[in-house]
């Protein structure tokens, strides 16, 4: 295994520092929302988590396409890494959303388009992870994963539209009209700073984790190759 690159070490430290600052901003800088109170603060990391989740799934679909085109192993490793990380982040987004929904909507869960789509997306990628575990032949596993990552990603907008055709109560934070009626709110400057800083922090966090996970993937690949050569 190659030594840990310097840039990665720097990125690790940067992520840690940013995380501290973001947490500080959320707790001490962003004002308490007038109606919802403290629970609104979950919003900053909730959206950041969901954002990282969607970025990862998008990356995996693109990388899956490149894998099918080029057939090089590194693209498969990257795609798997992105989905594994995003799967966890997306789960955190769903759970933190639930924590917010309990006081704001008076229920943990409601069958609203975004919540339902989120649940289905999580299930799609759970199926992806199961599929990977079910195939022994590495070459076949890589092809199947790439195909399923693309299929899954294409179905997300269709799922969202199909559920959206029914009504929604999820607040539309950017560009919503009657957001306040749904537990939405308009952000004042310090809130916006905290919000976009959280997004940035989590994006950096994602890149850092992805890098680590790809290095781990390369190692896994080496172990697997060794195992095949022994058999």
């Amino acid at each position, binding site marked *: 295994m190659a030594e840990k690159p310097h840039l990665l070490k720097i990125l690790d430290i940067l992520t840690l520092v940013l995380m501290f600052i973001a947490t500080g901003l959320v707790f001490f800088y962003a004002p308490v929302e007038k109606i919802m109170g403290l629970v609104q603060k979950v919003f900053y990391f909730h959206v950041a988590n969901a954002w990282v989740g969607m970025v990862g799934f998008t990356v995996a679909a693109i990388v899956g396409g490149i894998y*099918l085109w080029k057939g090089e192993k590194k693209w498969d490793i990257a795609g798997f890494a992105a989905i594994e990380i995003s799967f966890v982040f997306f789960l955190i987004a769903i759970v933190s959303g639930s924590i917010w929904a309990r006081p704001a909507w008076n229920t943990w869960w409601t069958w609203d388009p975004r919540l339902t789509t989120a649940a*289905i997306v999580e*299930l*799609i990628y759970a*199926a992806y992870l*199961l*599929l990977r575990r*079910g*195939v*022994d032949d590495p070459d*076949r596993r890589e*092809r*199947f994963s*790439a*195909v*399923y990552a*693309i*299929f*899954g990603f*294409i*179905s997300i907008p*269709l*799922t969202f*539209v*199909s*559920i959206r*055709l029914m009504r929604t109560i999820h607040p539309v934070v950017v560009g919503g009209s009657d957001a306040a009626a749904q537990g939405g709110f308009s952000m004042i400057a310090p809130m916006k700073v905290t919000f976009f800083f959280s997004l940035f922090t989590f994006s950096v966090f994602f890149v850092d984790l992805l890098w680590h996970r790809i290095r781990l993937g390369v190692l896994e690949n080496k172990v697997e190759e060794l195992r095949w050569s022994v058999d």
Partner: protein
Amino acid sequence: MQRIKAYLRAMGAIVWKDLAAELRSRELLTSMLVFALLVILIFNFALELDIKARDSVTAGILWVTFAFAGTLGLNRSMASEKDRGCLDGLLLAPVDRSAIYFGKAIGNLIFMFIVEIIVLPVYSVLYNTNLFQPGLILVILLGSIGYVAVGTLLATMAVQVRTRDIMLPILLFPLAIPVLIAAVKASNGFLQAIPLAEILPWLNLLIVYDIVFIATAFMVFDYVVEE
């Protein structure tokens, strides 16, 4: 022109092979049908289908039945190719791989249609409702096409996986959600005689789903059967 003819002939040959095999063994259709009727029976007890409840849930019951029976058929149809080494034989044939996909998909679609054609009158008789409405037939047509288009590709993957008996529904259902939602909503619309303008978005969604996934499956099928 010559190439298109050859392509269609290859497709037709696969469909014909599936139909001929089914005509002799009848194992796929009978199991799909019995299973579909059992699902309807179970719903009867699970939901207490009295006359009031019936109107609002008929569309849902029909589509759950079709989806479950469809999964059974898709899995069986691909598994029999895999078990007896037929898939390798098919792949050796000097035809475009996508012709194999379309041939299998059309075969599966025909089986699904046969099950649906039998389930509809049975349901109509059992629950005293008339399900033979042109609108509903159209929805069933569009919905089944989308379901089978995705299902055939995923079944081809699923039969090559170690845990193949349980893999297909896990892979297929989350991807089939848009088609199921749209199909249930549109079917319900036609059964409740809702104005066409309100059903139209669902029909559009079904058409978009069909086109998008047939096109994607056409492009990636090669990678799923490659050895």
